[in-house]
C-alpha cells in the first residue's frame, strides 16, 4: 500500500514536472522506418532543447496517419501538429476553418523570403500561413549503377533522353535489367512525372498539371511524353509487378540492373549497403541546363485550438522545425534537401548539393502532381497511367481519359 502511494505520488510529481517544463506538443507523423525515425528525432531533440515537451504519435503509412489526424480534428481531440504532404491534402480542412495559422512566426522569420515559390503557394492559403514545410524531396532522380554501366560498356553518363534510351538498349544487350522498376501505381506515377519534366519541359508540365489545359493535354508534345513513358516499360523485367521500390533499388546495388527512376529517399538504401554517390552509383537530376527540379515534401499543420498553452507549442514547433541548423540535420537523415536555400550545404552529399544548386534557380522549380491536383484528380490520373503502363491502350484514348479525369 505504501509503495502504491509512493508511486502515485511519484507519477503526480512527474506530471507536474512535465507540465512545468514547457509547452507540450503531440505530433502525428508517419515517419516510422529506420532513417525516418532518426530524422524525426532531430525535430524532437531540437524542440526539447527549446524548452518544450515532445509527445510522439507515429502512425505507419501516410494515408492512415492523415485519416487519424482528420478524424481527431473532427472529433474535437486534435493533436498539436499533424503531418501532411506538400499538397492540396489539407485544403479542405483549411476551408472548414479547422486549422490555426502560424502567421506570427512566418512573418517574424520571413518565410516568404527563403521558401521556394512552389512550396510557398501550398502553405500560404488566402494570405495566411497554415502549414510549416519541413523538407523537399525530388521524386524523379535517375539513379544508375556504375558497375552495371561498366558491364554494358557505357562510358559516359547520359546527357539527354536519347542518350538515356541508347544506354538502356546497351544494358539490355548486355543481358542486364535495363530499368529497375516496381510495378505499383505510385512508382509509375514517378516515371511519368520524370518524362513530363524531361521530355515535355517546364512549360508543358505547368500547362498540363497546373492549368489542366485541354489543348496541351491533347497536343502532340504531350503525346510524345506518354509514348516515351510507355517506351520505358519495354525496359522493365517481367518480375516488376508489385515489387517494392527498395527491392528495385537493391537490383542497382547488386549490379543486376542499370537505372532506376526514384525519389532521393533511395539514397538511404545505397547508404545502408555502404555505397557512395559518385563512386558506386550516379545521380541525374534531369537532362540539360534547364531541367526542372520537381518538388515534393512534407508539412506540418496546426489544428485549431483556443488553449493558450497549445498555441504556444504550435508556434514553437513552427519556428524550431524551420531553423537552419535543424533543417540541415533533419535532411541529412531523411535524404531530402532543406526547404530553405540559405543554409550551409557543405554537410550535404553531392547529389543533394547538386539538387540544391538547381533549386536555387527559381525558374527551374516545379511541384509534383500533388501540389497542383487535388487527391481525387491525382488518383484518377494515377489509375489511367498505371493501366496504360500495363496494358496496350491507344495513346489517344489515354489523352482523352486524362482530359476527362483532370476536368473535375
Amino acid at each position: 500500500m505504501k509503495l502504491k502511494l509512493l508511486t502515485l505520488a511519484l507519477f503526480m510529481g512527474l506530471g507536474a514536472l512535465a507540465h512545468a517544463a514547457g509547452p507540450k506538443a503531440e505530433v502525428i507523423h508517419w515517419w516510422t522506418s529506420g532513417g525516418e525515425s532518426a530524422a524525426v528525432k532531430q525535430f524532437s531533440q531540437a524542440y526539447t532543447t527549446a524548452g518544450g515537451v515532445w509527445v510522439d504519435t507515429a502512425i505507419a503509412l501516410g494515408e492512415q496517419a492523415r485519416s487519424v489526424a482528420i478524424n481527431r480534428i473532427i472529433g474535437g481531440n486534435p493533436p498539436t501538429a499533424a503531418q501532411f504532404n506538400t499538397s492540396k491534402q489539407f485544403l479542405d480542412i483549411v476551408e472548414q476553418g479547422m486549422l490555426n495559422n502560424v502567421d506570427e512566426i512566418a512573418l517574424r522569420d520571413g518565410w516568404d523570403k527563403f521558401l521556394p515559390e512552389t512550396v510557398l503557394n501550398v502553405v500560404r492559403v488566402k494570405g495566411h500561413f497554415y502549414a510549416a514545410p519541413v523538407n523537399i524531396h525530388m521524386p524523379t532522380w535517375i539513379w544508375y549503377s556504375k558497375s552495371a554501366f561498366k558491364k554494358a560498356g557505357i562510358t559516359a553518363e547520359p546527357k539527354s533522353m536519347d542518350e538515356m534510351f541508347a544506354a538502356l538498349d546497351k544494358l539490355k544487350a548486355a543481358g542486364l535489367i535495363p530499368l529497375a522498376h516496381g510495378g505499383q501505381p505510385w512508382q509509375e506515377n514517378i516515371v511519368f512525372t520524370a518524362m513530363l519534366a524531361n521530355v515535355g519541359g517546364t512549360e508543358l508540365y505547368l500547362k498540363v498539371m497546373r492549368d489542366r489545359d485541354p489543348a496541351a493535354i491533347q497536343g502532340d508534345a504531350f503525346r510524345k511524353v506518354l509514348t516515351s513513358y510507355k517506351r520505358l516499360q519495354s525496359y522493365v523485367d517481367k518480375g516488376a509487378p508489385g515489387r517494392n521500390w527498395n527491392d528495385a533499388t537493391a537490383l542497382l546495388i547488386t549490379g543486376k540492373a542499370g537505372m532506376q527512376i526514384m525519389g532521393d529517399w533511395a539514397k538511404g538504401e545505397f547508404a545502408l549497403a555502404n555505397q557512395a554517390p559518385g563512386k558506386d552509383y550516379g545521380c541525374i537530376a534531369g537532362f540539360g541546363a534547364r531541367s526542372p527540379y520537381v518538388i515534393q515534401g512534407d508539412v506540418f499543420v496546426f489544428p485549431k485550438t483556443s488553449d493558450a498553452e497549445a498555441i504556444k507549442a504550435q508556434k514553437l514547433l513552427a519556428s524550431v522545425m524551420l531553423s537552419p541548423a535543424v533543417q540541415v540535420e533533419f535532411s541529412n537523415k531523411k535524404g531530402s534537401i532543406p526547404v530553405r536555400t540559405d543554409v550551409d550545404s557543405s554537410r550535404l552529399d553531392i547529389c543533394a548539393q547538386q539538387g540544391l544548386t538547381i533549386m536555387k534557380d527559381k525558374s527551374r522549380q516545379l511541384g509534383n502532381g500533388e501540389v497542383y491536383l487535388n487527391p481525387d484528380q491525382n488518383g484518377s490520373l494515377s489509375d489511367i497511367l498505371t493501366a496504360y503502363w500495363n496494358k496496350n491502350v491507344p495513346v489517344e484514348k489515354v489523352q482523352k481519359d486524362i482530359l476527362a479525369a483532370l476536368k473535375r
Partner: protein
Amino acid sequence: MKARLLHLSRQLVSWSALLPMALTVLVAYLGTVLWSLKVSLTNSRTFPSDEYVGLAQYERLFNNDRWLLSLENLALYGVLFIAICMLLGFLLAVFIDQKVMAEGALRTVFLYPYAMSFVATGLVWQWMLNPGNGIQQALRQLGWQDFTFDWIIDQDMVMYTIVIATVWQASGLVMAMLLAGLRGIDEEIWKAARIDGIPTWRVYVSIVLPMLAPSVATVFVLLFTAVIKLFDSVVSMTQGGPGTASEVPAKFIMDHLFGRANIALASAGSMVLLLTVLALVAPFLYARSRARRREERG
C-alpha cells in the same frame, strides 16, 4: 384479466430483450445506409457537404474504367469462388464423413486456413506465386527449366490466383458446416438405401444433398457476403495490380474514402454494391420464405 396481463408482461420482456438489437439495426445499419445515400447525392470531398448534385457521382462512377473493371472482376471472382468452394467443401465433408482415421486432425487441418488472418496468409501466397522466388523458381531449380507459373503478374490470369488463395481459405469452413449437416442425417436413411442396393454416390446426390438444402443455403449466403467484401486478399496479394487488373469494388471504395478524399464517390460506390446484393439476395430469400410457408401449411 390476470392471464392477459401476464401475457402482456411476457411480451414486454421479450421486446425489451430485442430492443438493443433492434436499435442497432435501425441506427447502425439503416441509419448509416441512409446517410451514405445522402452523401452519394452531394459533392462531398473530405467532409460531407449539403450541396446536392443529383446523380452526378453515379454518372462518374459508371464512366470510370477502373470501377467497371472492378465490377467485372468481382463477378468473375464471385462465380468461380462460390462454385469451387461449394464443390470442394462438399467433397471434403463427404470424405471426412466416411469415418476416416484421424478425423479430428484432418478437420483441424482443413479448417485451419479460415482461422488465420488473410493479411498474413495472403503475403505467403504472394511469395509462393511470385515467379522470381516462388513455386516457379523452386521447380526450375529442381530441373524443370521450362516450368512457368506467373499468373500473379499476368494481366489476364491474376484474378484466378486470388480465387485459388481464397478457395484454400474458405473451403474448410464450407466443409465444417456441411459436415455438421451430414452428421444430422438419420442413420436409418443409409440403412434403407443399402437394403435397396442404391450406390453410395447416388444416395449423396439424390437424397442427402436435398436434405442438406438449409445448410447449403447458409453456406451460400456466407460465401456471397465474402465475395462482396473481397478486399484484404487483394490488398495483401496484388494491391490491385498488375496495373489495375485485379481491382475490386471494395478497394475502389476504400481508396476514395480515405486517400483520395472523395467520400461522395465512395458512398455512391457502396450504394451500388448494396443494391447489387439486394437484387441478388432478395429473390433468393423470398423463395426460401415462401417454401417454408408452404411446408408449414403442409
